[in-house]
């Protein structure tokens, strides 16, 4: 746990450096804290943690941290979906907003040492998993096989295409892509993410493997069903949950599901834990 500042609700000024369009409605915002000391302290976050992002006048929202702490730059990848994310999308480089965090438990990357890692991401579900993938690749010796399965509705909606290309070229990493509807000369696989597991030439290791699943609710349900049918144990399937949050520090009550506060007890949970929480994912 990072040392708590005196006022946990006080965000610090952040400056937007540049914006990169990813897919329709989704952009990556590269930013840094105005105060270099704050930037230095923040960069010690763990993969899977999140931050609270303030757009003055619009409000605050929780955002996954897609960068790995092993990378130099800090950024958010955000879909424009409500009033606060719209305010972020309207910012221009040089504009100020504010950030506080990091919060949440993050992925216990040390617990996965010596294991195979299988990442299964549907659409923008790749955003929170990106941190974990980049971190694992930066500490390649600690992990066995690394497989990435990523699916999107159309080829235009595959996330982080530069990263996907790079990962596909990296020795010891398998990167499998699929789309629901082929378009514009797509010659890859067509089908839901789970259908990739059964493709010829694909073998998903079951023993000593942790699977990371993130994506829209329907994709999540089907991938979980597939993994369980393949013989995965519930405790070896990991995901990160999103909830409406106002504080990020276990006080406002909005993200409390079952007996867990997603903000402080999560957002990373095993499927074994998620199943007991008793809400839709």
């Amino acid at each position, binding site marked *: 746990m990072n040392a708590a500042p005196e006022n*946990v609700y006080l965000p610090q000024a952040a400056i937007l450096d540049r914006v990169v369009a990813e897919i329709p409605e989704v952009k990556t915002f590269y930013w840094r804290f105005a105060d270099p000391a704050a930037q230095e302290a923040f960069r010690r976050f763990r993969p899977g943690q999140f931050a609270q992002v303030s757009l*003055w*006048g619009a409000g*605050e929202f929780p955002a996954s941290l897609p960068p790995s702490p092993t990378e130099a730059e800090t950024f958010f990848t955000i879909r424009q979906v409500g*009033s606060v994310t719209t305010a972020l999308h309207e910012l221009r480089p040089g504009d100020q907003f504010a950030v506080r965090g990091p919060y949440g438990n993050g992925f216990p990357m040390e617990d996965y040492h010596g294991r195979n890692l299988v990442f299964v991401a549907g659409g923008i579900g790749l955003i929170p998993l990106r941190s974990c993938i980049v971190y694992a690749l930066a500490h390649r010796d600690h992990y066995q096989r690394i497989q990435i399965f990523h699916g999107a509705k159309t080829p235009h909606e595959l996330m982080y295409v530069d990263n996907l290309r790079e990962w596909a070229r990296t020795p010891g990493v398998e990167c499998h892509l699929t789309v629901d509807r082929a378009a514009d000369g797509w010659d890859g696989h067509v089908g839901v993410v789970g259908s990739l597991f059964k493709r010829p030439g694909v073998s998903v290791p079951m023993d000593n493997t942790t699977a990371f699943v993130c994506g829209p609710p329907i994709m999540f349900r089907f991938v979980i069903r597939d993994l369980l049918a393949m013989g995965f144990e519930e405790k070896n399937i990991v995901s990160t949950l999103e909830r409406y949050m*106002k504080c990020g520090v276990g*006080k406002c*009550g909005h993200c*409390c599901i079952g007996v867990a506060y997603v903000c402080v007890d999560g957002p990373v949970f095993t499927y074994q834990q998620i199943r007991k929480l008793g*809400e839709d994912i």
Partner: protein
Amino acid sequence: MKARIVARPDVLRIVDLLRADGREVLAPFRGRGRDTYFDTVTDENRGRIELHLPNPYYPPKRYVLPPIERLLRVERKNGGYEIEPTYAEPRRAIFGIRSCDVAGIHHLDRFYLGRDYRDPYYEKRRRHLFLVNFVCTDPERDIGEECFCLCTDTGPAARGQFDLQLMDLGDEFMAVAGTPAGEALFVHPIFHRGTPAHIARRRAILEDVRRRFKTTTSWFAAAIRYVSQGGVPEKTWEQIGNRCLECGGCTYVCPACTCFTVSDRPAGPDTIERVRLWDSCALSGFTRMAGGFNPRRARHDRRNRRFFRKLAHHFIQRELAMACVGCGRCAAVCHGDIGMPSVVEMIRRAPKEAAPA
């Protein structure tokens, strides 16, 4: 704990002492009909303070957690923003806070000041708050139809967490100090040493009052067990949920409810205020995310959230007490008769009724 005796005509002198010490003193007053409320004591209204009266529907929680509280003031300046936290650190005393509400504030203390993060706004409002607890001894005026502090073990006499506790012995009051700050008041000549007879009288009154409660049984232990072990039939949760009108009233009068939302609002041409407001898990938008996805599907999911949060063993362990102090306010305001005592009873009976004949 040290105790002293105060003559009946001198009891409001305690209010004067606290005011002379530079404190804003909040005390209970009677409005029209059943209405009672806490208000700031002034020279003008001091004579109208009443000690024996129905506990106000609005708990004194708002003195540590206001319904609307400014957190930050943000001013646009030179292309950037100046962010300034806006703290309030008043010196206050609540004179005549009931034992249930003392337990409520103690619960908020553990929730907002415990675990990984401390809430700085709560901490500052709480730091200089002096609590003068008043023991409910009059079955007609003090104890309402819905009071069930006997079942939550929070009353009628708080066992701690107050600075000073007053109990009506008839012609005199007994004052018990709960903190060094409370004991410091005893140097004033209105406080006299008591006799063993006073202690005997206190015991006798408490013994009698315990038998005068109207709602005598609320079987929390059984309800907690069923809720924690998943033993409440889905049908029972639905029945409870179907009686909820989603007005949020129960959460607004609850001395132990903690949920809030945060909102930005303009406070001038170049100024924004970030405020927090009480929120309620009974309301439909409580968990709805941007884009419209709401993970709590069925209405009874969110309507019952409140009871699960207050009764599940996991949270009781986490906060060292259940988040219900037996004040009975939710029972008094609920139009669907699903205040805590009714729900405890429905849950307690459910498994038996659901069992095959």
